[in-house]
């Protein structure tokens, strides 16, 4: 899902714990102080069409479930709007009885998200802002 509220990797990670799962992998994307073009980033601002973004996030989750059938819980939450330095922009949480599948699926989710979800970030630094130039052409969701 996409949300304008602060994200908590804790909540999603706790949600992913299941009695039959020995492994929970969490990826958190965090606003860092530098980008490809600026070394004094203060905040990011994400813009999207939430309907498009959520549809694509759901497709990623579906494909991951087909590729790694051992997965139990899996979710992707992406924050939109303005996000300050060190705040969380995206959380992926995956649980499985098998840690290898949990790692592979979590990585697939974040790697795929960056290429298939319509989402644009603006970088804010002291005195200015611009759209991020660290972009990827928008691709279709990969097949399972």
């Amino acid at each position, binding site marked *: 899902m996409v949300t304008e509220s602060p994200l908590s990797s804790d909540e999603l990670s706790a949600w992913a714990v299941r009695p039959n799962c020995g492994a929970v992998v969490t990826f958190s994307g965090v606003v860092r102080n530098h980008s490809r073009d600026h070394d004094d980033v203060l905040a990011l601002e994400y813009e999207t*069409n939430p309907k*498009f973004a959520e549809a694509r996030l759901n497709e990623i989750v579906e494909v991951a479930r087909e590729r790694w059938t051992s997965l139990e819980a899996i979710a992707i939450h992406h924050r939109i709007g303005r996000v300050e330095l060190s705040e969380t922009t995206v959380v992926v949480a995956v649980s499985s009885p098998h840690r290898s599948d949990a790692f592979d699926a979590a990585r697939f989710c974040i790697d795929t998200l*960056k*290429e298939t979800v*319509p989402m*644009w970030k603006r970088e804010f630094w002291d005195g200015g802002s611009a759209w991020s130039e660290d972009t990827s*052409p*928008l691709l279709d969701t990969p097949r399972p």
Partner: protein
Amino acid sequence: MARLILLGPARDAAGVGVDTVDGDSLEVVLVEAVRRYGPKFEAILEVSRVWVNGEPADSAAPISHDDEISVLPPVSGG
């Protein structure tokens, strides 16, 4: 005629986020959009994907008045 949705850098380049543009095919609508918004928008359009009603579409796709056309520049989520 169709509803044109310009997102992210495409919105900035066009100076507008939502517009109404005439045309009975996707190609015709986009030519009219370029005429209206100028070369900065054209440069972004060239590297963008265009969806009709939330789905990738061909430039020959016929357009009717309740269609929604979205211009999606290269993405930077995550």
